[in-house]
């Protein structure tokens, strides 16, 4: 595969927080770097929140991890991702989440290689625990290695 995660994650779009917040606030904080760079617009952020309201918290793919996404192409200028790790639990419609990953895709396929790599990383328990513990340098290191 050609696409590397280090092309997509960097100092700016990996955010570590340690405060009480709602899941809506978490989605906004996680989206901020992508909004600033013009990769997504407010429409996409609203659509991600609507997705939870309409379809329930199915994006919580395992305990403490939510893959936030909405319809491809709507409010997305460039395939992009960002990551927020909060050191306190955030309630997402009844499920505890600490890792919010935003995935924005322009079409049905351009993000798949990234998603596949992310899944590989997160299915590895050591990597998952490192990300959950929220040390930015270590998280960037894992992402850079893949």
């Amino acid at each position, binding site marked *: 595969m050609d696409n590397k995660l280090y092309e997509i994650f960097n100092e700016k779009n990996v955010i570590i927080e340690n405060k009480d917040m709602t899941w809506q606030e978490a989605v906004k904080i996680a989206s901020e770097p992508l909004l600033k760079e013009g990769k997504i617009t407010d429409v996409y952020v609203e659509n991600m929140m609507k997705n939870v309201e309409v*379809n*329930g918290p*199915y*994006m*919580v*793919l*395992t*305990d403490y*991890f939510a*893959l936030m*996404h909405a319809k*491809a192409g709507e409010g997305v200028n460039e395939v992009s991702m960002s990551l927020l790790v909060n050191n306190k639990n955030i309630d997402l419609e009844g499920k505890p989440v600490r890792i919010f990953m935003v*995935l924005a*895709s322009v079409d*049905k*396929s351009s*993000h*798949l290689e990234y*998603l*596949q790599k992310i*899944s*590989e990383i*997160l*299915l590895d328990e050591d990597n998952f625990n490192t990300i959950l513990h929220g040390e930015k340098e270590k998280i960037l290191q894992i992402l850079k290695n893949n």
Partner: protein
Amino acid sequence: MKVLAVCGFGVGSSMVLKMALDKVAKDLGIKVEVENTDLSTAKATEADAYFTSAELVSELENSVKNPVYPIHKFMDKNEVKEQFEKYLATLKEE
């Protein structure tokens, strides 16, 4: 053995589920071909077993003849393993 990982759009979550199923099968030492797809394609695709979110189970069950297993958390290896083993157990009974 061919199994399908199914989600609403067949773009994101079903691939994550496919990878979890691949990993579980590998851990168990079982050869299995896992494909991911959206709900409407899955309805018309033959497979030995289907894995999907709890919300989609009944709709899929109405359209396919082989068993459908619900997964609440697509990346939860323990849950995926448990459901996959349920399917394997049905094979032993036959």
